[in-house]
């Protein structure tokens, strides 16, 4: 089932066009990987999906992005609510300079999701468990989140993202600052999370895209060159540019 449908997306940074007529459907409860060389527009596209480009003054987005049959670029769209539904995890772990507990409770508090401390405790515990971090931090919930290791901080950010029960999680190179063990833990987590969430991950690691995703989109110079099942893209891509990129024949 299609969760997100983007139609004719053009993005401009001032006069420079960064994305050209992107039409991409994202399937529900699957992991979609976006790959492509630096500057190809994959992160720009990702940021369109929760209107993160709004914060860049010179950025203009044209086209339609339908999520649950609702155009998120419509004037009536409440961006705060949108970002509750569509969480994001960034390249560098960016926990708030607060305790582990507060990192998780921050979002649910803003969105009024807990009526009592017990309810909030439960949200914190569930989120940390879903992010596979509970075992490691349950005894130090009131210590600063910034005191955790890089991999733990990233899982804390994932826990923070899932605490508000988003339908979609956007991940922008979530493992690029992590060692292979922490990376494997995040990848395992992505596999688990897709049962309840739709995940879109931007990654420079083709091996990671191959490992974690069911669908892959290849971007080049602002265009979506090819999109299809990950299996097909990595074994027998249809477009020569895709093949040249994934086999290391570019440039």
């Amino acid at each position, binding site marked *: 089932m299609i969760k997100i449908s983007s139609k004719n997306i053009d993005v401009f940074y001032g006069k420079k066009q960064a994305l050209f007529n992107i039409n991409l459907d994202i399937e529900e409860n699957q992991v979609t990987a976006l790959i492509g060389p630096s500057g190809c527009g994959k992160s720009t596209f990702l940021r369109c999906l929760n209107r993160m480009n709004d914060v860049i003054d010179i950025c203009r987005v044209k086209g339609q992005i339908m999520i649950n049959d609702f155009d998120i670029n419509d004037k009536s769209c409440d961006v705060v609510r949108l970002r509750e539904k569509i969480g994001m995890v960034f390249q560098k772990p960016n926990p708030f300079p607060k305790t582990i507990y507060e990192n998780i409770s921050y979002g649910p508090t803003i969105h009024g999701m807990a009526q009592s401390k017990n309810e909030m405790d439960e949200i914190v515990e569930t989120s940390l468990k879903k992010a596979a971090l509970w075992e490691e931090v349950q005894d130090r919930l009131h210590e600063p989140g910034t005191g955790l290791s890089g991999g733990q901080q990233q899982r804390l950010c994932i826990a923070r993202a899932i605490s508000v029960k988003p339908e979609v999680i956007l991940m922008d190179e979530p493992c690029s600052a992590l060692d292979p063990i922490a990376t494997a833990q995040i990848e395992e987590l992505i596999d688990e999370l897709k049962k309840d969430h739709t995940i879109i991950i931007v990654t420079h690691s083709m091996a990671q895209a191959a490992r974690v995703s069911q669908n892959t989109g290849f971007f080049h110079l602002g265009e979506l060159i090819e999109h299809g099942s990950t299996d097909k893209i990595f074994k027998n891509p249809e477009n020569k540019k895709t093949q040249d990129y994934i086999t*290391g024949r570019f*440039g």
Partner: protein
Amino acid sequence: MTEAPHTVKSYEEELKNLNSNIIKMGGFCEKSLGNAIQAITTRNSDNAESVIKDDEKIDKFETLIEQQVVNLIALRQPMAIDLRETVTALKISSDLERIGDLAKNISKRTLLLNENLPKNLVDAIIRVSSDVQKQLKSILDAYLERSSAMAINVWESDEQIDDLTNFCMQEVIKYLKENEKNLSDGTHLLFVTKNIERIGDHTTNIAEQVYYLVKGEYLEGDRPKGTEPIVTGEK
């Protein structure tokens, strides 16, 4: 389709090297099969001996190719066409190795046969083997040229080889029935015929691999088959 070179030159070299080893190994198999057929049809023991000796070279190629494939997978993680190159090299080398073994077996039997074989049997062997030799050459060319059309041609020609094999088998059976003294030679000749047919089957396997290599898809449908084999009962 000619591919652009890889950015990493050493990776490009490793793939080229793998490719050239398949070609060399195929060349050795062609030579061995040619010598084995020459040996049995002209009763040339020297040729038969050289086939038996050369099999070792073919076996070594298989080991070398296997090592190269494992290294490529472990160290380069090939994708798309490179992945298909790597995986098909492994499978093709295994078929070529079997072709080498079968040629060797024909030669071993050649050394055990009587000097004078009836002309009709020799002719029947020449007919089926010359088709198989052509198949082997064609499929190695198809691999070299990355031609799926040539691969399909080879794949489809297997039917004719099956028919010629059956004809050859019938001739040998007649020969066996003629005289009890023909039992030993006739039995060897049945195996020789079957070995030639098996070599044809391996070229068909390679054709399937070449098709997959080029197209990224498997050849669909049942393999073309000739008339039912009369001796083995195999399908």
